[in-house]
Structures are given as C-alpha cells and as structure tokens.
C-alpha cells in the first residue's frame, strides 16, 4: 500500500504533527519536540522541551525568550540531514528573515516540504529561498490574492527618502516589525545611499545588534530617547519602531510625526488609512501572489497544502492549473505579522 502524506504530517491542535517522527513543526502550544522554521513569535514559542532549528533561529529565540526557553536545543545548519526516529529532516533557506528555513521531512518514499513563511525575492539580510522538489508542498497564503503584487522594495525606500527630504521639519516614524523587517528596511535605506544616523525604538535594539554580529552592517543606529535630543532635534530624522508604539506616549517626543508603515498590507488603501498611516510602504517579507504561483510551479509538487491566510484563492488557482490542493486548517498563526 502506498504511503499517504497524511501519515507523515497531520494538523493537530498543537500544530502540524509528524507521527513517525513524534515531533511538531511550529507548534502553538508547548510540546516535547518542536521543529521551528523561524523566530517570529507566532511560530517560535518558549517552553518546548526540545527544539530543533537553525543556529540563527535558536540565537533569536534565546534573545527573545532567554537562553532557557527550552530544556534542550539542537542546531541544524542549512542542508544538514538530521534523523529523528524513522524520519529524516533537512532545513533549507526560506528567505523570510535571518535564519528562516523550510523544513523537508522524508519518510519511506515520501517528501513533504513545510515552507513556513517564505519570500523568493533576494533580501540582503538573509539567505535566499531555495526551491526543494517534493511530493507535497505546504505553502503559506498570507498574500494569496491577485491584488497583492509587492513592488520593488527599493522603490518604496526611495519614496521614503523623498518624503524625508520634502518634509525637513517633521520626524518620519517608520513602523517595522522588530525581527526581519526592521533590519531589511535599515539595510535598504543604507543601500539607497542614506548614511545619517537612524533612531531606534528600544524594542528593535537587540535584534539589530544580533544582525550586526552576523555580518549584516546596519550603519549608525542610535536610541530614539529624549536624552538623544530635544524634540526639535528629531526634525528631518528617520525613526524606526514597532507600529504599536506610535499610538503610545513614546511618539510624543517627535515633532509633527509623519507616520509610515512598511508592510505588505499597505497595498490596500483602506488598511493604510484605518491605521492612520500617512506614508504607506509596501515592503513585505512574504511571497506575493505571483511569487506564490511561480514557486508552486518551480517546486512542482504532486500536491499542495495551503495554510494561514487566504487559502481559498490559492486552492482555486491550483485547481485551475490542475494541481491537487487543499487548505490545511492550522490555527494560531497571525494574519497581521508582516
């Protein structure tokens, strides 16, 4: 009898479960053995007994949760084969954030790739996505609608810098998530030729330091504290912080703040306006619609499982291409994390 993919990976309340290997991938509750694709909080949680992830993802978890976030950790480099019971697993770059990986799970004659969150386009702050041929490809669907076509991120940075020079009396507050987006945006700003100090909300500092330690140069970064200057001193400056901070008392120290937000969601005008964003920057760490389609065609899987996001549209697209596909109902992953 042929091996069924459902015997190798199956959704459970805790997350995606592998019975022959007795482990979970990105579980949302505490488990014995967890394989983690990347360090974002909805995928990587503290409190598992045993964690297997790339060295960088383990470092990031230690920075966020403390070195004791799991009883035991094990690092798997890209391309390295790890055997867990009857199953072999291998981590491949996912191009989402530093350390992010797809996990290829093999058992008998079957290979499933759980791609986590991924982005095929080049990103100077992490290893580039690598398509892995497989029988079942598990894909995210965060931006799985034909309206999501991310523009070139550098063009968006150009818009930011143009706005900065046009509004020298205002402070630009750029909303970025602290892991990945922050460092990518900073690196792109530097690549665009802007070398003045950038000011950081405290929540970004540690991860920026970590990226630096991994050889990703981010230039002159300073804390956006009041000690750093009186209110007027932030005029014309670029300040980066988590978007949640902009509604907070923290934002009051800046002169006539111009709120910006770097996210794939900024593609939709209503989303930007609801958040009070004056300068929406469409910069995403996820695959856009065309990239999801291209990736599925490149990987060429026998079957596609679609998870977190707009599953129905991607399943529909697969059906139109004659590729068997179904939604994989996993709970607990945030829609907004971009």
């Amino acid at each position: 009898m042929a091996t069924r993919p459902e015997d190798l990976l199956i959704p459970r309340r805790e997350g995606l479960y592998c019975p022959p290997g007795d482990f979970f991938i990105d579980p949302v509750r505490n488990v014995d053995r967890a394989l983690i694709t990347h360090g974002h909080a909805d995928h990587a949680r503290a409190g598992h007994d045993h964690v297997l992830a790339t060295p960088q993802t383990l470092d990031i978890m230690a920075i966020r949760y403390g070195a004791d976030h799991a009883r035991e950790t094990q690092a798997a480099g890209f391309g390295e084969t790890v055997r867990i019971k009857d199953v072999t697993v291998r981590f491949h770059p996912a191009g989402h954030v530093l350390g992010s990986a797809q996990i290829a799970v093999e058992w008998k004659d079957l290979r499933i790739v759980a791609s986590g969150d991924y982005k095929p386009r080049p990103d100077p702050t992490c290893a580039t996505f690598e398509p892995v041929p497989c029988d079942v490809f598990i894909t995210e669907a965060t931006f799985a609608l034909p309206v999501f076509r991310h523009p070139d991120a550098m063009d968006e940075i150009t818009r930011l810098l143009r706005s900065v020079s046009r509004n020298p009396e205002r402070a630009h507050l750029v909303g970025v998530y602290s892991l990945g987006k922050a460092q990518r945006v900073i690196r792109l700003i530097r690549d665009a030729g802007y070398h003045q100090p950038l000011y950081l909300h405290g929540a970004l500092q540690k991860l920026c330091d970590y990226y630096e330690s991994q050889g990703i140069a981010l230039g002159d970064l300073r804390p956006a504290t009041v000690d750093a200057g009186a209110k007027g001193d932030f005029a014309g400056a670029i300040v980066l912080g988590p978007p949640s901070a902009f509604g907070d008392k923290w934002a009051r120290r800046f002169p006539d703040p111009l709120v910006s937000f770097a996210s794939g969601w900024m593609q939709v005008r209503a989303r930007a306006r609801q958040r009070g964003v004056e300068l929406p920057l469409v910069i995403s760490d996820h695959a856009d619609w065309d990239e999801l389609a291209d990736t599925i065609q490149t990987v060429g899987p026998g079957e596609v499982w679609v998870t977190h996001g707009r599953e129905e549209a991607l399943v529909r697209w697969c059906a139109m291409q004659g590729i068997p596909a179904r939604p994989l109902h996993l709970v607990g992953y945030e829609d907004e994390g971009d």
Partner: protein
Amino acid sequence: MNRFADLLDMLAFTPSRNAKLRLLQDFFRTVPDPERGYALAAIARDLDIPAVKPAQLRELISARMDPELFGYSYDYVGDLAETIALAWPQKGEALAGRNDMPGLSEVVETLIASSRRDGPRLVEDWLDRLDPPGRYALLKLVTGGFRMGLSGRLIKQSLAAFGEVDVNEIEELWHGLAPPYTELFAWLEGSGDKPVNAAAAPFRPVMLSHAIDDKDFEKLDPKDFTAEWKWDGIRVQATSERGISRLYTRTGDDISATFPDLVDAIGFDGALDGELLVARATEGGLETGSFSDLQQRLNRKKVSAKQLRDFPAFFRAYDLLQEGDEDLRPRPFVERRQRLEAFVSGLDPARFDCSQLLSFESWDDLAALRANPPFAVIEGVMIKRKAAPYLPGRPKGEWFKWKRDPFLIDAVLMYAQRGHGKRSGFYSDYTFGVWREPGELVPVGKAYFGFTDDELIEIDKYVRNNTIERFGPVRSVRAGAEKGLVFEIAFEGINRSSRHKSGVAMRFPRISRLRWDKPPAEADRLETLERMIDGTE
C-alpha cells in the same frame, strides 16, 4: 498619469489641511497646462467624461482573469477601481523603462472626444500601459469616484495661494470657467489678464458675521443696527440671469440639482442671499420645518417625489445683492433691505419670504427676544449695521451673530480614540453616554474639542489608567456609577435619530467642562435628552 496618480495618493493619505494646500500649490507650480487643469477639474469633480460604466469595467476584468479569483479579491479590498487596478493582469513585458504610458491630458482629451462604444476599448489599452497607481487614477477618473475629503473651498484656496490673489476672486470666477482652465492659470501666474466671467448666474462671495462678545455691546449703539432671527437651515444664494437659475451654498458649491422645486420657482432676475429651510404653506400660515427635516433633502443627487412633497424647500431671504443689471452690494444695508422687501413681494409666497426684522430699542430688549424665540428652528439673532455695504468674507464690526445659549448635559466618557497629526499619541476623540437605566450607559455622541492642551494630557492619562478593553485604536474606558469621568457637553440642537442606538443625535457637541468632581451616577439620563427634543419640536 503618474504625476496625477502621485497627487491623488498624497492627498488621500495626508491628514493636514495645510499640507494639502501645499501639495496642490506645488502641483500647479510644477505641472504644465493642460494637465494641471484636467487634474484640477478631476479633483473638483468638474470633469464630465461620458462615463465608462462600472459594469463595463467588470466585463473588462472578467475577460482577463478568473471571476472567482476576482470575487475573492474584490471582497477583500472593497473598492472596485482599486481591486481592478491592483489585480489587472498585464499583457506583455514589465513596465520599467517604457515611455508609452498615457498622460492625463491624453486620457481626458481622448475620452471626451470618443464614443461610448470606444470607451472600454481605450481604457483596456491604457490599463495595459499603466502601473497600479496609474491604473487606480485612471479608473477613478472614468468612474468619477473621487472621495478624498477635499472641499471646493480648499481647492479654491489652494488656487488663491498659488496666484497670491483673494480667494473671493476665484469664487466669483469659478462657475464661468471650464477645464483645463488655461486662462485662469495664465492670470494666476501673471502671464495673462484676469478672465472675464462669461457665465450666467455666477456665485457672489458671501458676507459673514462675527460672534458677538458681551463687551462688544458697550461699544455698539443699538440705533445703528437692525436685528433679525438667525434661522437654523443652511445659508444659500439663489441667483438667476438670462434664464439660468442656480442655487449655491455659502462656499459656492452649486446645489441646484438637489433642490429642483426651489430652483424652478426662481422666476426673477437677480441674486438673493438667504436661508434654505423646509417649510409648508398651511391654512394657518407657513410652517417651518426643523433642521432634521432639511437634512432629508441635503446631499442627494436625486430627489424622490415623496421627498419633494414631504419636505418642500423654502427660501427665507436676508439680502438682495443684484437686481437686474444693478449690483446692489455697495449700497447700505437699509437701502438693500427696502429693495429686498419690494423684490420678494413679487415672488411665489409658497417658496420665498423675507426674514422678519425685530424691533428693539436697547440691547436688553433684544436679549429678551433672543431668550424667547417663537420657533425652535431659530438659533439666535443676527445684528447688522444699517450702513454696512455687502462685503465678501468676514469684515469686522458690520454683522454679528448672537446665538442662543447652548444646551448643556453631563455625560460619562465611554470610549476614547487616538487622534492624528499633532494629537497622534493622545486619546483625543471621545464617545460619551448617558444613563438609560441605572447601570446602563448608552452612547449619545462624540466630541473631540473644547478642552485645552493641558486638559487633553489629563484626560489621556485617565484613559490609559482606566482602560478595560481595546479595539484597534479605540479604548473602552471604565464607566460605572462610582468610577468614571464626567464631561459637561455643550451642543446646539438635538433631534431624534433612527441611526443611533440611543435614538438621539446632537448637533455640534463639544466638551465645555471636565467634571472630575462629579460622580458618574449623577450624570444625565436619556429621558432628559428626550425631553429636550420634545421641547424643541
């Protein structure tokens, strides 16, 4: 098209009025004719393109992509033009470096000159050549669906600032001009003469009043002034010339189409300043409706027969600006008033009457009248200098408004929302409620001004320390019989409303005092508000 698309984007996302004014001026300065004129026409909604209908746009996109995928997309985005702009599958290669993107002028001129049959084919070709912001601008242009919070006044102010002329000059000219306004721009840039207004029945900039202060009375001699009721409708101008009749708002927006009943009754040649009201001629005389009656008629593109019958539009005249060929504006008020009375006596009494002058000897007499108006739809008195000519704008010392005292209630803060711009980071927009039952507060209104900057800091602190729930930018604040923050709310009027949970709607509510001292249990009850409505009906 890209410059225009950029302008739309920036206007849409820029909250500050001054910044919008700057953006428009920069655009007029840097973009040549005729493109800047077409852009101006588009945002002023003055561009009449024989429409490509939304249904035809749907057909275009259905021919290009799976209708099911389009359906998912449209559900998510919620705006047809935006969905098509983003999802449009392009034929051919990427756009980078291409130079065949159509410009705004090309698009407008081609569309105006082409038949309805050719429209969709043209649009399809342009969609293939534009990037997503350009497609969005194109689709909004052809469907005429610009909604971006730009008033006609703001657009005219940007032109005035650009040309360093008085905004009233722009207002006077506006209705005689047509896109792409080349003459206007030439004049504003100093390279041409001021355009001569060729349009019949132009708008004449309105004279406005100042709120009177108690200490003003000492300086003013009652003998130099007349007074009349201040009616709570909307200030309008009815004008007719060479068989063309128009009704304008006080900012010069042409609202003739919304009030055909009144416009058809304009049988005169001249220009009247007055108040638009709803009033029915009954056997007992004229019965003036409330402001909420008038609201049934405002902002409608089409008026039903029922609305025309139930809420007939009526014009109560304050002033006569023009009679036949004669411009009366330089003449003193008393003289214009005499001419007005004679003029209005010749008009249809079911549609027009003259605002009544009040007789008074002293300011105390007038105060007594003001305290006891004969109709609820009166919101105070107007005081006008007998010798004053009709001057556009808000000249000092000529006209005064003396509004009746506002209504006051005590209400409890229920929700707070973060503000924008200079108030970002502060909870500055408040929803307040009153008691329906003991223990049940029902929201009755929203207020976001009336307090000082220092008070804002205190309220913000209170909100943060007493949050019980969060919904995005909104916080639900602790509000019970014992604990809660009481606001004294001032407002101008109150009406029944089926759109609000409480069944009441206030006009112009603002915070008049913070009542840190008052226990929330002592705030007002909904019954009190309902009685206020009964009292005004």
